[in-house]
């Protein structure tokens, strides 16, 4: 009965309006590189003071959900992940767009995001308090191994160019060490320059390394930006639905991965998207198509990163420890409103939290129509705008977006320099993703390692610290599989082929 009341409350006209407006605003903001979900939610906080807590949460949750989906547009159409969560979306999204299937990719991303969002919200609704303990089971050493796992995916994802990918990863690790170190407070690799004291900001590195090379290539080649095969085919919904239905296991698996990674504070959507992507690829029959425009790749990352929204709210609401940066803003707003988060929120003040969760469902469902319409518009404008206008417009946006992250000119300078470096490296066959992964995962790995080492040394049990904890061992096993898996499969495939003549693996 109480549940029903909360459901009704979530569907009040005001909340409907907030969810709809939030999703639309979020999608647009998320699609612009540099404007992040965190920023969008932060701008909204003062407005939410005049609202009831549940309505405020719905508005912020809707913006957040929309922004994570919106990041797919620039990833697919411009090869630029608007947020780290969309890195793996570029792997197949951009090739699809290049092949003339950009509209299909955007629609697939929308469906996948809705599925991911719903799965994440379902876990939040049903299992939040028990799942919050997952966040606590992860200590420094588990974060260290998780980051190493993420880095090991560089190897798994870059067959053929392994050495170059590893070199790129190392460059990224070096970049991550620049600036004030998070745990030791040392100021490193700044070469006396104040520009580098703040370190390399992740989103500006994303924009530089991914978007600038695309822009340079656009100017340097006479081809159209994206191939347009036929006249506008619309949103290709039936086709996309059919593909989604075929990929339903992939969608569900990726959503579950996204939720679980989302529960870990600080791990973030980038790891979720990558793990989901590599799992999708590992289990797929059409492995060769991955990286060349496989719809499964887009589905995997987009469902996983939207599932992190629901997952991230679990530690935020149950433990008061924000799962993601936007969660941190939302948590702050709740504190100011006098809402005390914790397990009690799910019992004594349950009406707020359940109204919010139903509101999150609502916002996610609303994302389907709005996302499809905005996506169609985004795709059309990208293909319709002549290059002479597209390039300066996007270039301008990258500058503004980079500056907006923390109102810093240094970030713009770093973005442009990284862009130039990225373009040159690209000519020599280095791709941006390993560099960015190194940059993002480097600091997680470093912090985890230093903390685990300090605790291990203090308790005189270093080996047990690194190799004696069950979750660590499980992650180590996954690292081994991801590093050696492909060669083992090949080995077996080779033997089978020898033994059975023509039979394939």
């Amino acid at each position, binding site marked *: 009965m109480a549940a029903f009341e909360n459901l009704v409350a979530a569907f009040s006209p005001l909340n409907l309006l907030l969810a709809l407006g939030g999703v639309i605003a979020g999608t647009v903001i998320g699609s612009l590189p540099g404007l992040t979900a965190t920023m969008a939610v932060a701008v909204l906080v003062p407005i939410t003071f005049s609202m009831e807590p549940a309505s405020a949460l719905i508005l912020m949750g809707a913006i957040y959900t929309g922004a994570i989906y919106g990041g797919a547009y620039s990833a697919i159409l411009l090869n630029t992940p608007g947020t780290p969560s969309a890195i793996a979306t570029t792997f197949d999204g951009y090739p699809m767009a290049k092949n003339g299937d950009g509209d299909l990719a955007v629609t697939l991303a929308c469906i996948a995001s809705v599925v991911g969002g719903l799965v994440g919200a379902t876990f939040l609704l049903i299992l939040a308090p028990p799942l919050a303990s997952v966040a606590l089971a992860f200590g420094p050493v588990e974060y260290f191994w998780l980051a190493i796992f993420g880095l090991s995916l560089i190897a798994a994802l870059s067959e053929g160019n392994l050495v170059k990918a590893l070199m790129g990863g190392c460059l990224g690790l070096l970049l991550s060490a620049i600036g004030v170190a998070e745990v030791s407070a040392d100021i490193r690799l700044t070469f006396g320059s104040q520009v580098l004291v703040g370190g390399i900001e992740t989103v500006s590195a994303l924009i530089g390394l991914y978007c600038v090379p695309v822009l340079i290539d656009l100017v340097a080649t006479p081809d159209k930006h994206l191939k347009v095969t036929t006249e506008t085919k619309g949103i290709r919904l039936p086709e996309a639905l059919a593909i989604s239905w075929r990929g339903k296991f992939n969608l569900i698996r990726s959503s579950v991965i996204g939720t679980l990674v989302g529960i870990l504070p600080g791990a973030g959507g980038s790891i979720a998207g990558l793990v989901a992507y590599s799992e999708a690829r590992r289990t797929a029959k059409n492995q060769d198509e991955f990286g060349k425009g496989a719809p499964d790749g887009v589905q995997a990352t987009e469902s996983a990163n939207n599932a992190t929204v629901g997952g991230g709210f679990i530690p935020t609401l149950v433990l008061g420890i924000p799962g993601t940066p936007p969660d941190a803003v939302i948590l702050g707003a709740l504190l100011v409103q006098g809402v005390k988060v914790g397990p009690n929120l799910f019992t004594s003040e349950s009406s707020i939290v359940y109204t919010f969760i139903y509101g999150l469902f609502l916002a996610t469902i609303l994302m389907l129509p709005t996302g499809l319409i905005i996506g169609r518009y985004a795709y059309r404008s990208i293909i319709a705008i002549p290059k002479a206008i597209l390039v300066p417009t996007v270039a301008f946006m990258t500058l503004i977006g980079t500056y907006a992250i923390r109102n810093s000119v240094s970030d713009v300078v770093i973005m442009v320099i990284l862009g130039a470096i990225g373009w040159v490296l690209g000519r020599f066959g280095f791709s941006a993703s390993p560099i960015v992964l190194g940059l993002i995962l480097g600091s997680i790995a470093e912090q985890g390692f230093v903390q685990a080492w300090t605790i291990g040394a*203090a308790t*005189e049990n270093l080996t047990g610290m690194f190799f004696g904890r069950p979750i660590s061992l499980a992650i180590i096993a996954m690292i081994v599989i991801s590093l050696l898996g492909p060669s083992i499969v090949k080995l077996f495939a080779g033997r089978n082929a020898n033994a059975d003549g023509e039979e394939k693996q």
Partner: protein
Amino acid sequence: MKFTTAIKASVLSLGLATGLAIAPAVHADDYPSKSINYIIPFGPGGESDISARHQQPFFKKMFGQDLIISYKPGGGGAVGWSQLNSMPKDGYTMMGINLPHIIIKPLQKDVGFKTDDVDGFYIFHYTPDAIVVTADSEFKSLKDMIDYAKANPGKLTFSGSGKGTANHLAQVTFDKLAGIKTTYVAFKGTGAAVQALLGNQVKAEFGYTSVGAKHSDKVRMLAVAMEERHPSFPDVPTFKELGFDIVSGAYRGIAVPKGTPDDIKNKLSEMIGEINKDADFRKKMEADGFALIDVGVDKYADFIAEKTKGYVESAKEAGVIK
């Protein structure tokens, strides 16, 4: 009724937009005549953000203008503070400041600003350092903890927020005064330090009273670094009562770009002081574990000078500065 809130919200957001567009000349008499940019040199969700968010509605209510909060994280605050003096000096831009950060950071290396470059005009509260353990911890009192540390040198692990921070310097002082050796493990912010405590990755946390307030159902505090007991925690003793002279924490305040007119600085100082006096505001802040203090524009320089001595001493001992 719900629609009126929606209308209020949209009017407010419109107001925000126009507030940004119109920029009249600065006069102390009609100050503030538009919204004020309030920059936090850290990411969102931390104590600095939350205290600014607490001030936001009271400022609006008392002085009719909005505080527009934005973030400029990086370099442990250095990115923001090094740029503060190049920002508009019209009184409509101000930035949060934190102690010991603005004292320790410039002593480590050239980070683009010196402590004296930061034109602070108010220190409005501090989050007192506190030793926090989980509710089911074996340590029932500070004495239990010291006994354990004496029997197991180095094995008592504390999580805490960052290195060279209030938490870290308090741990160094505590070790010295109690004659023990403990291990401090730096985490990225209070959230991560609490996560490590609740997950039993460490034995205890050198955190703030705000941790005890926020997670009151799962943790308890053994001692707080205040002159007197915190009003929200009458049962938790101070370090002083237990014989250790530690009164410390992370102090927060506000600075303006150097060159902002003095009369505007004075007025801002008065305004922040008035918010600090508001009974409703005090109640909210204290419930969240903050301890309010009033160091206005006239007392600011002396306060910094006094704090610098203590911080530099323990930072040297901690090996954070040479």
